[in-house]
């Protein structure tokens, strides 16, 4: 064991001397309280340590111990439904140990050691297995099958495997490896800074449906893709992230509250056990893991929190599941990085951020992907990454937003003026983009509507035209516009107010299926086409605008999924009928 002494304390950065042979990124424990940290720099016999807890009371000469292993997370059944801090300490257990306020130097295992799981082997004695192969399954929740895998880097022949009740540290299988017999437990550890291996990355082609119209229809993210949501304060980042956590059609959701508000975590804890997953009917909490390192918790642990989250995400991906990870907010993570860099007296880059900010961001997002996982079986899994960004003053030119945009493929641009008008989600349709449109087109057109892309693109073209017309109105007034343009403005208003606007707090409107989205937009676009034709054939603008079907379009948002198909079909017919009555051919 390596034991040294504190030589310098500057907030969360501690330098220890006499640390000969200490290794980079190994865990270090400081002082009598055993405050936990990680070695992030070595120089001669001095080690620089980033400490995950407040360092008040630490003095020169206090002992420092290197634990001899890197910062790792525990992986086993029992992760789902849990709530952890940035270094995977279970917050519910901490509460029962030390009360409502977080104390220092407390530790608790991330995974319950006493709980019995029913292990059902799927491999048998004599099978040759390698890292990623499935040994058996455990029902982690009523409906979720947790696959117990051979850890990466381990291979051999099974010489023993036993089913039945087992705790996570019990040996469930033994294999013969070239290096001798190896006992395997359900519990695995993995260092957070290293991505878990996979066999091959594939181009993502399946959309991750979120139930949010502006996202799914206009700026879709694919399963295994990356997206970022930058926006000034109050523009709706958190609500979007929560909506995604609630409604995204993935198997597992990991929500990393990274330097954000305590009450936002409380909201998740209050709502998720009550809300039902639309796919399975089970409480949302059962597919969710929360990592909560709120803004007032030590910021060094905030830096680690996104790695803690993503390592757990990769573990579920390796089982062959679709996983989504949301980080709110990556700007707070970057600030923690900047703080630590500042205390290390590194050369600052733009706005004080370290020069390696962009490469760190890139390597984080690179851990997303739709992949063939390791192991002898042909299995795929996906990890979708969505990061909120909080640019100072809402200025997107700042380093974190720019660094993020360089690596993510979807940009959901939140806009303060839209939020002031209470147009939610305040995602600006002209500034946002998705580079997955062509990748997911096939899925949509096969499963939802044959002309999905065309419908979406023509709606987008109208919105673009609207912006040009508004410019004219601003200069010369609405009187300068002809009926055709005025009609177009009415249609785009309908796209905005009846389709893009979506109230997260309305029981029905909060979630919109892919098919409902398609038919809603199709109906508005049909109205536009019919109306345009009617105008061309000389019908009056007011006559068209006062057709009763317009009122029905407004109400579509609130129609429950179960009734929607009938309602929209009837509306389509009555709309056609109303235009027919005007004598439009």
């Amino acid at each position, binding site marked *: 064991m390596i034991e040294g002494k*504190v*030589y*310098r*304390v*500057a*907030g969360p950065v501690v330098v220890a001397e006499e640390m000969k042979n200490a290794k980079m990124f190994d865990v270090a424990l400081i002082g009598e309280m055993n405050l936990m940290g990680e070695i992030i720099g070595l120089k001669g016999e001095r080690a620089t340590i980033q400490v995950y807890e*407040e360092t*008040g*009371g*630490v*003095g*020169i000469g206090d002992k420092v111990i290197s634990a001899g292993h890197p910062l790792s997370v525990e992986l086993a059944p029992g992760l789902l439904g849990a*709530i952890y801090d940035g270094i995977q300490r279970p*917050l*519910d257990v*901490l*509460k029962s140990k030390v*009360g*409502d*306020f*977080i*104390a220092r130097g407390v530790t608790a295992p991330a995974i319950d050691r006493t709980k019995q799981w029913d292990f059902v082997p799927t491999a048998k004695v004599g099978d040759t297995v390698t890292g990623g192969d499935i040994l058996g399954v455990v029902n982690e929740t009523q409906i979720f099958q947790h696959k117990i895998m051979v850890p990466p880097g381990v291979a051999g022949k099974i010489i023993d495997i036993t089913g039945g009740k087992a705790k996570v540290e019990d040996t469930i299988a033994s294999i013969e490896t070239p290096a001798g017999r190896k006992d395997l437990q359900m519990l695995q550890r993995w260092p957070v800074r290293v991505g878990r291996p996979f066999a091959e990355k594939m181009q993502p082609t399946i959309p991750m449906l979120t139930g949010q119209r502006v996202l799914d229809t206009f700026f879709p993210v694919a399963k295994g893709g990356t997206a970022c949501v930058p926006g000034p*304060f*109050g523009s709706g980042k958190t609500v979007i992230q929560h909506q995604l956590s609630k409604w995204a059609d993935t198997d597992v959701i990991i929500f990393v*509250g990274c*330097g954000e*508000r*305590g*009450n936002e*975590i*409380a*909201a998740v*804890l209050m709502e998720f056990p009550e809300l039902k997953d639309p796919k399975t009917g089970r409480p949302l909490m059962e597919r969710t893991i929360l990592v*909560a390192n709120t*803004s*007032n918790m030590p*910021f060094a642990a905030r830096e680690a929190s996104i790695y803690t989250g993503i390592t757990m995400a990769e573990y579920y991906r390796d089982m062959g599941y679709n996983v989504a990870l949301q980080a709110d907010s990556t700007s*707070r993570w970057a*600030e923690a990085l*900047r*703080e630590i860099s*500042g205390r290390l007296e590194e050369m*600052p880059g733009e*706005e*004080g951020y370290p020069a390696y900010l962009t490469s760190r961001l890139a390597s984080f997002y690179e851990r997303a992907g739709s992949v063939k996982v390791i192991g002898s079986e042909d299995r795929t899994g996906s990890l979708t990454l969505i990061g909120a960004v*909080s640019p100072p*003053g*809402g200025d997107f030119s700042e380093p974190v937003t720019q660094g993020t945009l360089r690596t993510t493929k979807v940009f959901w641009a939140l806009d*303060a003026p839209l939020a*002031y*008008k*209470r147009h939610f989600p305040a995602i600006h349709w002209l500034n946002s983009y998705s580079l997955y449109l062509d990748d997911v087109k096939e899925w949509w057109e096969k499963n939802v509507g044959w002309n999905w892309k065309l419908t979406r693109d023509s709606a987008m073209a109208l919105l673009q035209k609207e912006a040009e017309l508004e410019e004219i*109105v*601003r200069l*010369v*007034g*609405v*009187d300068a516009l002809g009926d055709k343009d005025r009609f177009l403005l009415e249609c785009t208003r309908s796209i905005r107010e009846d389709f893009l606007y979506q109230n997260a*707090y309305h029981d029905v409107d909060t979630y919109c299926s892919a098919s409902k989205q398609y038919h809603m937009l199709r109906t508005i676009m049909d109205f536009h086409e019919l109306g345009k034709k009617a105008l061309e054939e000389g019908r009056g603008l007011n006559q068209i605008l006062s057709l009763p079907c317009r009122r029905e379009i*407004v109400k579509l948002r609130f129609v429950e999924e179960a009734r929607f198909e009938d309602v929209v079909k009837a509306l389509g017919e009555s709309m056609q009928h109303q235009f027919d009555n005007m004598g439009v051919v």
Partner: protein
Amino acid sequence: MLKNYMTVNEVFGPLMFVEKVTDAKYDELVEIELSSGEVRRGKVLELHGDRVMVQVFEGTSGINVGETKVRFLGTSIELGVSEDMVGRVFNGFGIPLDKAQKVIPETKLDINGSPINPYSRDYPLDFIQTGISSIDGMNPLIRGQKLPLFSGAGLPHAEVAAQIVRQSKLLSGSDDFAVVFGAMGITFEEANYFISDFRKTGAIEKAVLFINLANDPAIERLATPRMALTTAEFLAFEKGMHVLVVLTDMTNYAEAMREVSAARKEVPGRRGYPGYMYTDLATIYERAGRINGKSGSITQIPILTMPEDDITHPIPDLTGYITEGQIILSRDLHRKGIYPPIDVLPSLSRLKDLGIGAGKTREDHADVLNQLYAGYARGKEARELAVILGEAALGALDKKYLQFADAYEGKFIAQGRDEERSIERTLDIGWELLSMLPEDELKRVRPENIKKYLKRGKAPAGQSEENRRK
């Protein structure tokens, strides 16, 4: 016996460096004895070998290199707290200012507090009626929320804050409440305005005041909000009280932070403020809320003046990212003589969604709020158009919206300094205003609510004189 170090070797701005120190701890309290016998306080900011960096709260003037004695007290900065603090006045470092006897502490607490475990938090759900329509109707305050006032120099934030303190109540009746007031670097007049208002209404009996005025030591301001919140946490979570904390002015607090950071020669973030300002402010603002199984709560109303009315300035910007919304005062409305000059469009209460509605305020609250927002936003756009093109160039509908916006400012936002409107009254005014618009335009309102609440033909005209500045 504590060691007396006479090894001060450098003094710079609010910082002092002591050498050959063997027993200092990070973040501990330091006592500094000047050659005159005066004793000041500081805290350890950094340890480097045997060299210690100390931040001095009362300023470094008079500290010299040869004769100053420094003692490291072995504890963090603590405040002795007790229920008897209620009704008392302290300076910014927690020393009683009034002549009454010393507070006998029930316990001593580290003023930095500890973060509330997010798992222990209870989500705030109870609507507080402040009697101010533009808050209650549009951006309601919820018990356990942190909702700052973003103001500017010369705007009536003190009046608005005092009115909130005076009128706040729960609809379900009264509870044990207390007010904790932390003043950082404000003028004597402003502090006095609050104190005499608290006196007038009797709130003073229920208040704990920590006062650091403009001419008090600037660095002491870094401790003042922590003193206030330590007291608030004790009253709320140990004594079960509902505590309303008013902190003013957070801008002065942030400037003190900048001063220390500059002296430390840290790499500055935006506009010279330190990169850790977000985290530092969060350790103040996050000390609000409710805790599962405890009856008390802390509701925070920090006040800050935006330098040059600029909301993108780091102080309001970072605050807005931490707090649960913001109430913004507008110079335009103030110039028009509208009190309270609350700019509702960029204002926001993030906790409103679960705190309003049937059983809490009224079933139509969310609809009215959304519709008033949309209508006022459109009316203000029309007003801008009218400025450029003349009112005549507006379409008929835009003209209606313009009238609506005027009436909204005059009847809904504007109210008297002592006018306390019930939430029903506020919502009814909202409906009166909405009735000025064609019914088809009311897309954000559920049809049931239109049927029940929309009274026809009672549209009020323009801005009414009686509601203007009284």
